[in-house]
């Protein structure tokens, strides 16, 4: 059952009607390009060994996200998206990476990322996840905007890769990075959908949480990994050994 194209009516103030975008049209290509860039950077995150490099990649991803948001704001003639872009740029491309570098220095974590799953396997897993993302997005009838649909696939892949990173890295910082790139994927999805209300609020709220996680890393001085926090701190207090 194909949905009616009611929603596809171009809004008066928008240069390109956002109903029938397809390949070969500039707005779509750019959006797609940016999304692809983010996905690529997610793979970079998985691929990098050195923490500093990972953080750079993260910063770049944040920057691209900001760009994507801004572009969508332009395409959809939705000014609030510029705000989102601005926040993303400030926080994800600049502030948080700086904070993380600081953390590395504070917790002297200058060493290669310890992985629970090897780099190679995690890359393969990443590819598989992307395939899965495309697979699940595929059945969405093309009636929904192609742009949104492709963006969804990309965003979904970014989210899944971020989560994959969280669970394959033993290092607290890297896990935070994973969480952040997940959140980047979310925002990408959010901005990707035409006319999504509350984008700013939602993205900010999500951001707040990430910031708090980073803060947590600072406050609780989580040196090595969640593992040790989990086991090392707690076993004596839990009294649950069978």
């Amino acid at each position, binding site marked *: 059952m194909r949905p009616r*194209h*009611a929603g596809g009516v171009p809004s008066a103030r928008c240069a390109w009607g956002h109903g029938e975008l397809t390949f070969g049209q500039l707005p779509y290509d750019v959006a797609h390009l940016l999304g692809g860039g983010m996905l690529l950077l997610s793979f970079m995150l998985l691929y990098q060994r050195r923490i500093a490099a990972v953080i750079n990649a993260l910063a770049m991803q944040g920057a691209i996200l900001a760009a994507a948001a801004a572009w969508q704001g332009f395409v959809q003639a939705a000014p609030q998206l510029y705000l989102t872009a601005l926040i993303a740029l400030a926080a994800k491309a600049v502030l948080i990476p700086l904070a993380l570098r600081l953390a590395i220095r504070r917790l002297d974590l200058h060493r290669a990322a310890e992985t629970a799953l090897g780099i190679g396997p995690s890359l393969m897993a990443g590819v598989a996840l992307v395939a899965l993302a495309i697979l*699940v997005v595929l059945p969405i009838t093309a009636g929904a905007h192609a742009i*949104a649909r492709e963006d*969804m696939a990309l965003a979904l892949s970014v989210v899944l890769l971020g989560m994959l990173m969280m669970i394959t890295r033993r290092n607290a910082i890297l896990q935070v990075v994973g969480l952040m790139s997940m959140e980047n994927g979310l925002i990408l999805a959010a901005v990707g959908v035409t006319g999504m209300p509350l984008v700013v609020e939602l993205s900010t709220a999500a951001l707040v949480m990430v910031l708090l*996680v980073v803060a947590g890393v600072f406050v609780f001085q989580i040196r090595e990994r969640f593992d040790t926090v989990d086991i090392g701190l707690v076993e004596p*207090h839990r009294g*649950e050994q069978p």
Partner: protein
Amino acid sequence: MPLPWFPLPWIIVFVPWAGALALLALPREKPAALVNIAISAVGLVLALGLFGHPEGEQGWTRVDALNTPLVVLAFLIGLTTAIFSAGAVAQEGFDALRLRAYHGAFQLFMGAQALALLADNMGVMWVAIEIATLASVLMVAVHGTPAAIEAAWKLFILCGVGIALALLGTIFLYLAAQPLVRHGDGGLSWAVLHRVAAQCDPGVLNLAFIFLLVGYGTKAGLVPLHAWLPDAEAEGPIAISAVLSGLLLNAALHAVLRAKAIVGAHPGTVAPGPFLIGLGLASVLLAASALWRRRDARRFFAWSSIQHMGLAAVAFGFGGATANLAGLLHMLGHSLCKSAVFFGLGHAAQLKGTQKIAGIGGLVASHPGLGWGLAIAVAAVAGLPPFALFASEFLLLTEVVARAWWWSLPLGLGVMMAAAAKVQTLQLMCFGEPTPDAPDAPARWAEATTLGPLWLHLGLALLLGLALPGPLAALLAAAARIPG
């Protein structure tokens, strides 16, 4: 009868938040506790006003049969918990800062709770649940002990990821509705989504439901997303366990229900029920076996919360008016009984100076009032009559057997095993030779602030299970039709 523009829901939400600010400013213990009680009482009164409030959405909020009882219950438990905490907080040994944080976080949590339940806009609901999560992280971590920090961190990370996934699900929901709604804002309104769901794209709806289920399911403590729950409930201040298992889980499950209602409204989607049944059954079975190995009383009852949430999830997964009614009853009854248990258990733990089951023994002999109260509360949680959980489990089992008998085998097994474990723990804690009390036992009047709420909850659970007033029963019946 409030005027249409009278934003009662928002008032309900913002009263606690205002109170939270006030409490953040109050350094001293007694007044803070009293103010806390006062605010909760006001909240309850306002919430009761919802019964007279016209149904339907109103901007970002909505009031209907499904969330009204949950909100009222939330504020009721908020009030009783505030009363209990007034008696219990003395034992927590907070310094001024922690005290402020504790009370402030509590009211912040209450407000977020109300918003999460009353929100009509799925985005607002998401934000509310995130705020509730942050508040609960604060409440759990407030002790600052390594164990508390670990529990809070676990809660934070796991629920954070869950929340993120829920956001993605929300975005998918909007994506599904986007072609059909003109003005953007409606695209996240539950009412609108529910209305247009039938013409939405089933594929997107499926995707949305998966993410919402995994996201909010984490908050609801469904297996295998449950890991944060036992530690969070065991390490925070005692009063917090009551609201965590009494309210937070309900709000999360309520969110899942809203999602299910939307997705279920489309005939072409993959039926959401089986997913819920699967997770619920996993929760019931895992909890039923985990209960046998607990040594820590609060973790024990946290696991029991997981089991009960699983039962409710199974009920909603089956769907239909009867099963939904059973699920709803189960949610309400579980909140009442479980918070009652945590009141009694909290007081007992403070008396004995430990929360190990082995350390709490012979309560009936040493403190008859508390002992029997706790015993009856645990029996109620174990699903024994005449309390609400007996009625709901009866209805659920009969319905399941009637609809698909094979599901009843694992279900009955789980219920049976869990109940047996609870009986064992009940006897360990309440019977036998009394264990020695801690040197710094709480004040006598603390027992009143424990037993009062405890018996009130049990009485209400009794009413709920056996003598529900006609209008309320009608309300629940109406509510049971909403999730579909």
